[in-house]
Protein backbone atom coordinates (compact mmCIF):
# COMPACT_ATOMS: atom_id res chain seq x y z
CA UNK A 1 0.00 0.00 0.00
CA UNK A 2 1.20 3.50 -0.82
CA UNK A 3 1.65 5.99 2.02
CA UNK A 4 2.23 9.63 2.87
CA UNK A 5 4.84 10.33 5.55
CA UNK A 6 4.45 13.60 7.42
CA UNK A 7 7.90 15.17 7.74
CA UNK A 8 6.42 18.43 8.99
CA UNK A 9 2.69 19.07 9.43
CA UNK A 10 2.68 22.89 9.23
CA UNK A 11 0.54 24.76 11.76
CA UNK A 12 -2.67 22.79 11.81
CA UNK A 13 -3.25 20.01 9.30
CA UNK A 14 -6.13 17.53 9.54
CA UNK A 15 -7.65 14.75 7.46
CA UNK A 16 -10.95 15.94 5.99
CA UNK A 17 -13.60 14.74 3.58
CA UNK A 18 -17.01 16.32 3.03
CA UNK A 19 -18.06 15.74 6.62
CA UNK A 20 -20.32 13.68 8.81
CA UNK A 21 -23.81 15.17 8.80
CA UNK A 22 -26.63 13.42 10.63
CA UNK A 23 -25.39 13.44 14.23
CA UNK A 24 -27.10 16.63 15.36
CA UNK A 25 -29.22 14.60 17.80
CA UNK A 26 -26.08 13.78 19.87
CA UNK A 27 -24.62 17.28 19.54
CA UNK A 28 -21.93 16.48 16.96
CA UNK A 29 -21.57 18.99 14.12
CA UNK A 30 -20.84 17.77 10.59
CA UNK A 31 -17.20 18.95 10.37
CA UNK A 32 -15.64 18.34 6.90
CA UNK A 33 -13.46 20.49 4.67
CA UNK A 34 -13.72 24.25 5.31
CA UNK A 35 -13.46 24.84 1.55
CA UNK A 36 -15.32 21.84 0.12
CA UNK A 37 -15.03 23.10 -3.48
CA UNK A 38 -11.23 22.95 -3.23
CA UNK A 39 -11.37 19.36 -1.99
CA UNK A 40 -14.10 18.19 -4.39
CA UNK A 41 -12.44 19.51 -7.52
CA UNK A 42 -9.03 18.32 -6.29
CA UNK A 43 -10.47 14.81 -5.97
CA UNK A 44 -12.47 14.78 -9.21
CA UNK A 45 -9.36 15.80 -11.17
CA UNK A 46 -7.59 12.71 -9.82
CA UNK A 47 -10.43 10.37 -10.80
CA UNK A 48 -11.44 9.99 -7.12
CA UNK A 49 -14.97 10.33 -5.82
CA UNK A 50 -15.49 13.91 -4.68
CA UNK A 51 -15.82 12.78 -1.04
CA UNK A 52 -12.38 11.11 -0.86
CA UNK A 53 -10.33 12.24 2.16
CA UNK A 54 -7.46 14.68 1.74
CA UNK A 55 -5.32 16.86 4.00
CA UNK A 56 -6.50 20.33 5.00
CA UNK A 57 -3.59 22.67 5.75
CA UNK A 58 -4.15 25.93 7.59
CA UNK A 59 -2.05 29.07 6.88
CA UNK A 60 1.10 26.96 6.55
CA UNK A 61 1.67 23.81 4.50
CA UNK A 62 4.42 21.44 5.62
CA UNK A 63 6.50 18.64 4.08
CA UNK A 64 5.13 15.32 2.90
CA UNK A 65 7.22 12.36 1.72
CA UNK A 66 5.80 9.81 -0.73
CA UNK A 67 8.00 6.69 -0.27
CA UNK A 68 6.10 4.76 -2.95
CA UNK A 69 5.13 7.76 -5.09
CA UNK A 70 1.56 8.92 -5.81
CA UNK A 71 -0.49 11.08 -8.09
CA UNK A 72 -1.54 14.23 -6.22
CA UNK A 73 -3.38 17.48 -6.72
CA UNK A 74 -3.50 20.60 -4.60
CA UNK A 75 -6.66 22.62 -4.05
CA UNK A 76 -7.76 25.84 -2.40
CA UNK A 77 -5.33 28.63 -1.64
CA UNK A 78 -1.96 28.58 -3.45
CA UNK A 79 0.65 28.13 -0.69
CA UNK A 80 3.49 27.91 -3.21
CA UNK A 81 4.12 24.14 -3.30
CA UNK A 82 7.11 22.42 -4.91
CA UNK A 83 8.44 18.92 -5.58
CA UNK A 84 12.24 18.88 -5.90
CA UNK A 85 12.19 22.61 -6.62
CA UNK A 86 9.60 22.37 -9.38
CA UNK A 87 6.36 24.29 -8.66
CA UNK A 88 3.09 22.40 -8.27
CA UNK A 89 0.19 24.63 -9.30
CA UNK A 90 -3.28 24.37 -7.74
CA UNK A 91 -5.84 22.02 -9.34
CA UNK A 92 -3.39 20.35 -11.75
CA UNK A 93 -2.75 16.61 -11.14
CA UNK A 94 0.91 15.81 -10.68
CA UNK A 95 2.81 12.52 -10.51
CA UNK A 96 5.17 12.37 -7.52
CA UNK A 97 7.97 9.79 -7.88
CA UNK A 98 8.88 7.31 -5.10
CA UNK A 99 10.97 9.05 -2.47
CA UNK A 100 10.05 12.58 -3.56
CA UNK A 101 8.95 15.20 -1.03
CA UNK A 102 6.16 17.73 -1.53
CA UNK A 103 6.98 20.99 0.21
CA UNK A 104 4.00 23.28 0.78
CA UNK A 105 4.75 26.88 1.73
CA UNK A 106 2.53 29.38 3.47
CA UNK A 107 -0.64 31.27 2.75
CA UNK A 108 -0.35 34.21 0.36
CA UNK A 109 -4.08 34.93 0.22
CA UNK A 110 -6.61 32.33 1.42
CA UNK A 111 -6.33 30.45 4.72
CA UNK A 112 -6.50 26.84 3.54
CA UNK A 113 -4.81 24.54 1.05
CA UNK A 114 -5.74 20.92 0.35
CA UNK A 115 -3.61 17.94 -0.62
CA UNK A 116 -5.55 15.27 -2.51
CA UNK A 117 -4.07 11.92 -3.57
CA UNK A 118 -5.28 9.51 -6.21
CA UNK A 119 -6.95 6.77 -4.14
CA UNK A 120 -7.68 9.14 -1.25
CA UNK A 121 -6.23 9.18 2.28
CA UNK A 122 -7.42 5.85 3.65
CA UNK A 123 -7.98 6.39 7.38
CA UNK A 124 -10.79 4.31 8.96
CA UNK A 125 -14.23 5.89 8.61
CA UNK A 126 -15.96 6.88 11.84
CA UNK A 127 -19.75 7.18 11.51
CA UNK A 128 -19.27 7.06 7.76
CA UNK A 129 -16.66 9.78 7.43
CA UNK A 130 -12.89 10.28 7.54
CA UNK A 131 -13.33 13.87 8.68
CA UNK A 132 -11.47 14.96 11.83
CA UNK A 133 -13.69 16.60 14.49
CA UNK A 134 -11.22 18.04 16.97
CA UNK A 135 -13.43 18.78 19.96
CA UNK A 136 -14.89 15.28 20.11
CA UNK A 137 -11.71 13.53 18.95
CA UNK A 138 -13.61 11.82 16.13
CA UNK A 139 -12.31 10.67 12.77
CA UNK A 140 -9.15 11.51 10.84
CA UNK A 141 -5.96 10.17 12.37
CA UNK A 142 -6.84 9.44 16.03
CA UNK A 143 -9.16 12.46 15.97
CA UNK A 144 -6.25 14.92 16.11
CA UNK A 145 -4.19 17.23 13.91
CA UNK A 146 -1.24 15.58 12.15
CA UNK A 147 2.20 15.36 13.76
CA UNK A 148 5.69 14.85 12.43
CA UNK A 149 6.25 11.14 11.77
CA UNK A 150 2.61 10.24 11.08
CA UNK A 151 2.11 7.75 8.26
CA UNK A 152 -1.11 7.93 6.27
CA UNK A 153 -2.19 5.07 4.01
CA UNK A 154 -3.36 5.85 0.47
CA UNK A 155 -6.37 3.92 -0.82
CA UNK A 156 -6.57 1.79 -3.98
CA UNK A 157 -6.50 3.70 -7.27
CA UNK A 158 -9.89 4.43 -8.79
CA UNK A 159 -10.75 3.23 -12.31
CA UNK A 160 -11.45 6.69 -13.67
CA UNK A 161 -8.38 8.26 -15.25
CA UNK A 162 -7.11 11.57 -13.90
CA UNK A 163 -8.06 14.82 -15.70
CA UNK A 164 -5.84 17.54 -17.00
CA UNK A 165 -6.85 20.56 -14.92
CA UNK A 166 -9.37 23.35 -14.54
CA UNK A 167 -9.71 26.31 -16.93
CA UNK A 168 -8.36 29.51 -15.45
CA UNK A 169 -11.63 31.36 -15.91
CA UNK A 170 -13.52 28.63 -14.07
CA UNK A 171 -10.94 28.49 -11.29
CA UNK A 172 -11.37 32.23 -10.79
CA UNK A 173 -15.14 31.90 -10.70
CA UNK A 174 -14.95 29.05 -8.18
CA UNK A 175 -12.42 30.93 -6.04
CA UNK A 176 -13.17 32.67 -2.74
CA UNK A 177 -15.07 35.97 -2.39
CA UNK A 178 -14.79 38.68 0.25
CA UNK A 179 -18.31 39.93 -0.45
CA UNK A 180 -20.30 37.19 1.25
CA UNK A 181 -23.85 36.72 0.12
CA UNK A 182 -26.35 35.97 2.87
CA UNK A 183 -30.04 35.36 3.43
CA UNK A 184 -32.08 36.45 6.46
CA UNK A 185 -31.57 34.48 9.66
CA UNK A 186 -34.31 33.24 11.98
CA UNK A 187 -34.04 36.36 14.18
CA UNK A 188 -33.41 39.03 11.54
CA UNK A 189 -36.65 40.72 12.64
CA UNK A 190 -35.24 41.14 16.16
CA UNK A 191 -32.97 43.86 14.78
CA UNK A 192 -34.05 47.42 13.98
CA UNK A 193 -34.03 48.36 10.28
CA UNK A 194 -31.22 50.83 10.99
CA UNK A 195 -29.12 48.05 12.56
CA UNK A 196 -29.72 45.82 9.55
CA UNK A 197 -28.67 48.70 7.26
CA UNK A 198 -25.50 49.15 9.34
CA UNK A 199 -24.72 45.46 8.98
CA UNK A 200 -24.89 45.62 5.18
CA UNK A 201 -23.14 49.00 4.89
CA UNK A 202 -20.17 48.11 7.11
CA UNK A 203 -16.88 46.36 6.54
CA UNK A 204 -16.00 43.70 9.11
CA UNK A 205 -12.52 42.45 9.93
CA UNK A 206 -11.82 38.80 10.74
CA UNK A 207 -10.20 38.66 14.20
CA UNK A 208 -7.49 36.19 15.27
CA UNK A 209 -10.28 34.13 16.84
CA UNK A 210 -11.07 32.37 13.59
CA UNK A 211 -10.98 28.60 13.32
CA UNK A 212 -13.04 25.60 12.22
CA UNK A 213 -15.63 26.29 14.94
CA UNK A 214 -16.31 29.87 14.03
CA UNK A 215 -14.98 33.29 13.10
CA UNK A 216 -15.29 36.33 15.35
CA UNK A 217 -15.62 39.56 13.41
CA UNK A 218 -14.90 43.12 14.42
CA UNK A 219 -16.63 46.20 13.07
CA UNK A 220 -19.80 48.19 13.61
CA UNK A 221 -21.48 46.76 16.73
CA UNK A 222 -25.02 45.53 16.18
CA UNK A 223 -27.61 46.10 18.89
CA UNK A 224 -30.35 43.52 19.15
CA UNK A 225 -33.66 45.35 19.44
CA UNK A 226 -35.15 42.66 21.65
CA UNK A 227 -34.05 42.30 25.23
CA UNK A 228 -34.22 39.09 27.19
CA UNK A 229 -32.91 35.63 26.63
CA UNK A 230 -33.61 33.68 23.52
CA UNK A 231 -34.52 30.03 23.89
CA UNK A 232 -31.69 27.72 22.77
CA UNK A 233 -32.31 26.34 19.28
CA UNK A 234 -30.44 24.50 16.53
CA UNK A 235 -28.00 26.69 14.59
CA UNK A 236 -27.22 26.30 10.91
CA UNK A 237 -23.83 26.28 9.20
CA UNK A 238 -22.70 29.80 8.36
CA UNK A 239 -25.19 31.56 10.60
CA UNK A 240 -24.14 35.00 11.78
CA UNK A 241 -25.03 35.32 15.43
CA UNK A 242 -24.86 38.49 17.43
CA UNK A 243 -23.92 38.04 21.10
CA UNK A 244 -24.63 40.75 23.67
CA UNK A 245 -21.43 42.64 22.82
CA UNK A 246 -22.78 43.28 19.32
CA UNK A 247 -19.80 41.95 17.35
CA UNK A 248 -20.99 39.24 14.93
CA UNK A 249 -19.69 35.66 14.84
CA UNK A 250 -19.96 33.30 11.86
CA UNK A 251 -20.45 29.71 13.04
CA UNK A 252 -18.55 27.22 10.95
CA UNK A 253 -17.97 23.51 10.20
CA UNK A 254 -17.12 22.36 13.75
CA UNK A 255 -19.71 24.67 15.27
CA UNK A 256 -21.70 24.16 18.41
CA UNK A 257 -24.94 22.52 17.26
CA UNK A 258 -27.33 24.69 19.29
CA UNK A 259 -27.11 28.26 20.54
CA UNK A 260 -29.03 31.02 22.22
CA UNK A 261 -27.95 34.21 20.44
CA UNK A 262 -30.04 35.94 17.76
CA UNK A 263 -28.88 35.40 14.19
CA UNK A 264 -29.08 38.37 11.86
CA UNK A 265 -28.22 36.50 8.65
CA UNK A 266 -26.80 33.26 7.23
CA UNK A 267 -24.12 32.85 4.58
CA UNK A 268 -25.58 31.15 1.48
CA UNK A 269 -24.47 27.59 0.66
CA UNK A 270 -22.60 28.73 -2.47
CA UNK A 271 -20.42 31.12 -0.42
CA UNK A 272 -19.62 28.84 2.55
CA UNK A 273 -16.38 27.65 0.86
CA UNK A 274 -15.29 31.32 0.77
CA UNK A 275 -15.67 31.50 4.56
CA UNK A 276 -13.21 28.60 4.74
CA UNK A 277 -10.59 30.75 3.04
CA UNK A 278 -10.92 33.74 5.42
CA UNK A 279 -8.02 34.48 7.71
CA UNK A 280 -7.39 36.97 10.52
CA UNK A 281 -7.15 40.54 9.20
CA UNK A 282 -9.31 39.91 6.11
CA UNK A 283 -11.95 42.53 5.46
CA UNK A 284 -15.36 41.33 4.39
CA UNK A 285 -18.80 42.71 3.57
CA UNK A 286 -22.24 41.17 3.37
CA UNK A 287 -24.80 41.28 0.57
CA UNK A 288 -28.46 40.39 1.20
CA UNK A 289 -30.19 37.94 -1.16
CA UNK A 290 -33.49 36.11 -1.11
CA UNK A 291 -33.77 32.32 -1.03
CA UNK A 292 -34.48 32.00 -4.75
CA UNK A 293 -31.35 33.95 -5.69
CA UNK A 294 -29.30 31.86 -3.25
CA UNK A 295 -30.53 28.64 -4.83
CA UNK A 296 -29.81 29.86 -8.37
CA UNK A 297 -26.23 30.68 -7.40
CA UNK A 298 -25.77 27.23 -5.92
CA UNK A 299 -27.14 25.60 -9.09
CA UNK A 300 -24.79 27.63 -11.26
CA UNK A 301 -21.81 26.84 -9.06
CA UNK A 302 -22.67 23.16 -9.06
CA UNK A 303 -22.97 23.08 -12.85
CA UNK A 304 -19.57 24.72 -13.19
CA UNK A 305 -17.96 22.17 -10.83
CA UNK A 306 -19.49 19.29 -12.84
CA UNK A 307 -18.37 20.74 -16.17
CA UNK A 308 -14.85 21.52 -15.03
CA UNK A 309 -14.22 18.17 -13.44
CA UNK A 310 -15.02 16.43 -16.72
CA UNK A 311 -12.84 18.81 -18.75
CA UNK A 312 -9.82 17.11 -20.33
Amino acid at each position, binding site marked *: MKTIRVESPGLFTTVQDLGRPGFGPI*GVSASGACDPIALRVGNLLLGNTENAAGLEMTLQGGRYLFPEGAMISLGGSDFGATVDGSPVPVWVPREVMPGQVLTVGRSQSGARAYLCVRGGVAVPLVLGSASTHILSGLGGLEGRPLRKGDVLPIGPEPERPPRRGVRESAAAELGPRKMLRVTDGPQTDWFADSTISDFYASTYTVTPEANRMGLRLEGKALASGVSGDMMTEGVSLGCIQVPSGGQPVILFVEQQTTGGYPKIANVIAADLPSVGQLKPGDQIRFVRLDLREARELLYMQERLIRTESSYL
Partner: protein
Amino acid sequence: MMSFRAASDQSLLIRFGAPAPKVPAVRLLSVPGIRNVHPAYESLLVVFDSLALDHEAVERIVRDLMAEESALPDAAPRVVEIPVSYGGENGPDLEDVAAISGLSAAEVIELHSATIYTVSFLGFVPGFAYLSGLPDRLAAPRLKSPRTRVPAGSVAIGGKQTAVYPMTTPGGWRLIGRTTLQLFDPAREKMSLLEIGDQVRFRPL
Protein backbone atom coordinates in the same frame (compact mmCIF):
# COMPACT_ATOMS: atom_id res chain seq x y z
CA MET B 1 -48.87 27.02 17.05
CA MET B 2 -46.32 25.26 14.90
CA SER B 3 -44.48 27.67 12.60
CA PHE B 4 -41.93 27.14 9.83
CA ARG B 5 -39.18 29.55 8.90
CA ALA B 6 -36.09 29.41 6.71
CA ALA B 7 -32.98 29.59 8.90
CA SER B 8 -30.73 29.57 5.82
CA ASP B 9 -30.95 28.59 2.16
CA GLN B 10 -30.42 24.98 3.23
CA SER B 11 -32.22 24.72 6.56
CA LEU B 12 -35.71 25.04 7.96
CA LEU B 13 -36.49 25.95 11.58
CA ILE B 14 -39.70 24.53 13.00
CA ARG B 15 -40.97 26.18 16.17
CA PHE B 16 -43.61 24.32 18.12
CA GLY B 17 -44.59 27.13 20.51
CA ALA B 18 -44.54 24.52 23.29
CA PRO B 19 -42.18 21.77 24.43
CA ALA B 20 -41.20 19.89 21.29
CA PRO B 21 -43.34 16.85 20.57
CA LYS B 22 -41.72 13.54 19.75
CA VAL B 23 -39.39 14.37 16.92
CA PRO B 24 -38.96 11.65 14.34
CA ALA B 25 -35.24 12.41 14.01
CA VAL B 26 -34.21 8.97 12.83
CA ARG B 27 -36.97 8.77 10.24
CA LEU B 28 -36.30 12.30 9.00
CA LEU B 29 -32.62 11.44 8.54
CA SER B 30 -33.53 8.50 6.34
CA VAL B 31 -35.36 10.75 3.85
CA PRO B 32 -33.17 11.34 0.77
CA GLY B 33 -31.97 14.94 0.69
CA ILE B 34 -32.29 15.53 4.45
CA ARG B 35 -28.80 15.90 5.85
CA ASN B 36 -29.15 16.68 9.54
CA VAL B 37 -31.59 17.51 12.32
CA HIS B 38 -31.04 19.54 15.49
CA PRO B 39 -33.81 19.12 18.07
CA ALA B 40 -34.06 21.69 20.91
CA TYR B 41 -36.57 22.57 23.66
CA GLU B 42 -39.33 23.94 21.46
CA SER B 43 -37.85 23.72 18.00
CA LEU B 44 -36.31 21.51 15.37
CA LEU B 45 -33.79 22.63 12.77
CA VAL B 46 -33.76 20.50 9.62
CA VAL B 47 -30.75 20.79 7.31
CA PHE B 48 -31.23 19.65 3.73
CA ASP B 49 -29.52 19.47 0.35
CA SER B 50 -30.95 22.50 -1.39
CA LEU B 51 -30.16 21.03 -4.81
CA ALA B 52 -32.57 18.18 -4.04
CA LEU B 53 -35.25 19.78 -1.82
CA ASP B 54 -36.66 23.19 -1.03
CA HIS B 55 -38.18 24.65 2.15
CA GLU B 56 -41.76 23.86 1.11
CA ALA B 57 -40.92 20.21 0.37
CA VAL B 58 -39.16 19.82 3.72
CA GLU B 59 -42.12 21.38 5.53
CA ARG B 60 -44.45 18.79 3.94
CA ILE B 61 -42.09 15.92 4.86
CA VAL B 62 -41.89 17.06 8.49
CA ARG B 63 -45.66 17.55 8.81
CA ASP B 64 -46.38 14.09 7.38
CA LEU B 65 -43.81 12.30 9.54
CA MET B 66 -44.91 14.06 12.72
CA ALA B 67 -48.52 13.11 12.12
CA GLU B 68 -47.50 9.46 11.73
CA GLU B 69 -45.14 9.51 14.69
CA SER B 70 -47.66 10.93 17.17
CA ALA B 71 -49.87 7.92 16.48
CA LEU B 72 -47.15 5.56 17.81
CA PRO B 73 -47.13 4.52 21.49
CA ASP B 74 -44.37 5.88 23.76
CA ALA B 75 -41.51 3.52 24.55
CA ALA B 76 -40.59 3.22 28.24
CA PRO B 77 -37.71 5.63 28.96
CA ARG B 78 -34.31 4.34 30.01
CA VAL B 79 -33.01 5.51 33.38
CA VAL B 80 -29.31 6.42 33.59
CA GLU B 81 -27.67 6.87 36.97
CA ILE B 82 -24.75 9.28 37.21
CA PRO B 83 -22.51 9.06 40.32
CA VAL B 84 -21.45 12.54 41.44
CA SER B 85 -18.88 13.82 43.85
CA TYR B 86 -20.55 17.07 45.03
CA GLY B 87 -18.79 20.18 46.35
CA GLY B 88 -15.17 20.91 47.20
CA GLU B 89 -12.83 21.26 44.24
CA ASN B 90 -15.21 19.12 42.17
CA GLY B 91 -18.03 21.60 42.69
CA PRO B 92 -16.53 25.01 43.44
CA ASP B 93 -19.88 26.83 43.07
CA LEU B 94 -21.91 24.58 45.39
CA GLU B 95 -21.78 27.08 48.27
CA ASP B 96 -22.87 29.92 45.93
CA VAL B 97 -25.81 27.88 44.66
CA ALA B 98 -26.72 27.15 48.30
CA ALA B 99 -26.57 30.86 49.15
CA ILE B 100 -28.75 31.78 46.14
CA SER B 101 -31.34 29.14 47.03
CA GLY B 102 -31.35 29.86 50.74
CA LEU B 103 -30.60 26.18 51.42
CA SER B 104 -27.59 24.53 53.00
CA ALA B 105 -25.07 22.80 50.72
CA ALA B 106 -26.29 19.43 52.04
CA GLU B 107 -29.86 20.35 51.17
CA VAL B 108 -28.85 21.38 47.64
CA ILE B 109 -27.18 18.00 47.15
CA GLU B 110 -30.20 16.19 48.52
CA LEU B 111 -32.65 18.07 46.32
CA HIS B 112 -30.48 17.85 43.18
CA SER B 113 -30.00 14.10 43.56
CA ALA B 114 -33.57 13.30 44.60
CA THR B 115 -34.97 14.55 41.29
CA ILE B 116 -35.46 12.53 38.11
CA TYR B 117 -34.49 14.59 35.06
CA THR B 118 -35.36 14.10 31.42
CA VAL B 119 -32.99 14.67 28.49
CA SER B 120 -34.73 17.39 26.44
CA PHE B 121 -32.11 17.42 23.71
CA LEU B 122 -28.35 17.36 23.13
CA GLY B 123 -26.43 20.32 21.78
CA PHE B 124 -23.63 22.83 22.32
CA VAL B 125 -20.88 20.19 22.20
CA PRO B 126 -20.92 16.41 21.57
CA GLY B 127 -22.82 14.57 24.28
CA PHE B 128 -23.99 17.69 26.17
CA ALA B 129 -27.53 16.82 27.35
CA TYR B 130 -29.89 19.61 28.39
CA LEU B 131 -31.80 18.16 31.35
CA SER B 132 -35.24 19.39 32.28
CA GLY B 133 -36.85 18.99 35.68
CA LEU B 134 -34.52 21.06 37.89
CA PRO B 135 -36.47 22.06 41.03
CA ASP B 136 -37.25 25.83 40.84
CA ARG B 137 -35.53 26.28 44.19
CA LEU B 138 -32.18 25.30 42.63
CA ALA B 139 -32.29 27.68 39.66
CA ALA B 140 -29.20 29.91 39.67
CA PRO B 141 -28.10 32.55 37.15
CA ARG B 142 -25.10 31.84 34.94
CA LEU B 143 -21.75 33.33 35.93
CA LYS B 144 -21.22 36.93 34.80
CA SER B 145 -17.93 36.01 33.25
CA PRO B 146 -17.74 32.41 32.05
CA ARG B 147 -14.82 30.16 33.00
CA THR B 148 -12.37 29.59 30.17
CA ARG B 149 -11.95 25.99 31.29
CA VAL B 150 -14.63 23.82 32.83
CA PRO B 151 -13.28 20.30 33.56
CA ALA B 152 -14.90 17.37 31.77
CA GLY B 153 -17.52 15.64 33.91
CA SER B 154 -18.54 18.81 35.77
CA VAL B 155 -22.16 18.77 36.94
CA ALA B 156 -23.58 22.25 36.61
CA ILE B 157 -26.61 24.47 36.98
CA GLY B 158 -27.32 27.26 34.47
CA GLY B 159 -30.59 29.13 34.96
CA LYS B 160 -33.38 26.57 35.23
CA GLN B 161 -31.29 23.80 33.68
CA THR B 162 -28.78 21.27 34.85
CA ALA B 163 -26.25 19.32 32.78
CA VAL B 164 -22.92 17.53 32.76
CA TYR B 165 -20.06 18.98 30.68
CA PRO B 166 -18.88 16.02 28.54
CA MET B 167 -15.51 17.55 27.70
CA THR B 168 -13.28 20.32 28.94
CA THR B 169 -14.64 23.50 27.38
CA PRO B 170 -15.31 27.10 28.35
CA GLY B 171 -18.59 27.47 30.23
CA GLY B 172 -20.70 29.85 32.27
CA TRP B 173 -22.82 27.47 34.35
CA ARG B 174 -22.28 27.03 38.09
CA LEU B 175 -20.35 23.87 38.97
CA ILE B 176 -21.73 21.84 41.87
CA GLY B 177 -20.00 18.48 41.41
CA ARG B 178 -18.22 16.12 39.07
CA THR B 179 -18.67 12.62 37.68
CA THR B 180 -16.02 10.27 36.38
CA LEU B 181 -18.47 8.78 33.85
CA GLN B 182 -17.54 9.58 30.27
CA LEU B 183 -20.51 11.34 28.74
CA PHE B 184 -19.00 11.16 25.25
CA ASP B 185 -16.47 8.61 24.06
CA PRO B 186 -15.69 8.30 20.35
CA ALA B 187 -14.24 4.81 20.96
CA ARG B 188 -17.49 3.54 22.44
CA GLU B 189 -20.17 2.03 20.20
CA LYS B 190 -22.78 4.27 21.83
CA MET B 191 -20.67 7.44 21.77
CA SER B 192 -23.08 9.59 23.72
CA LEU B 193 -24.05 8.17 27.13
CA LEU B 194 -27.35 10.08 27.00
CA GLU B 195 -30.00 10.35 24.31
CA ILE B 196 -33.16 12.38 23.90
CA GLY B 197 -35.91 11.08 26.19
CA ASP B 198 -33.59 9.29 28.65
CA GLN B 199 -34.25 9.81 32.37
CA VAL B 200 -31.30 10.77 34.54
CA ARG B 201 -30.72 10.50 38.26
CA PHE B 202 -27.62 11.76 40.09
CA ARG B 203 -26.26 9.61 42.93
CA PRO B 204 -24.10 11.43 45.51
CA LEU B 205 -20.81 9.68 46.33
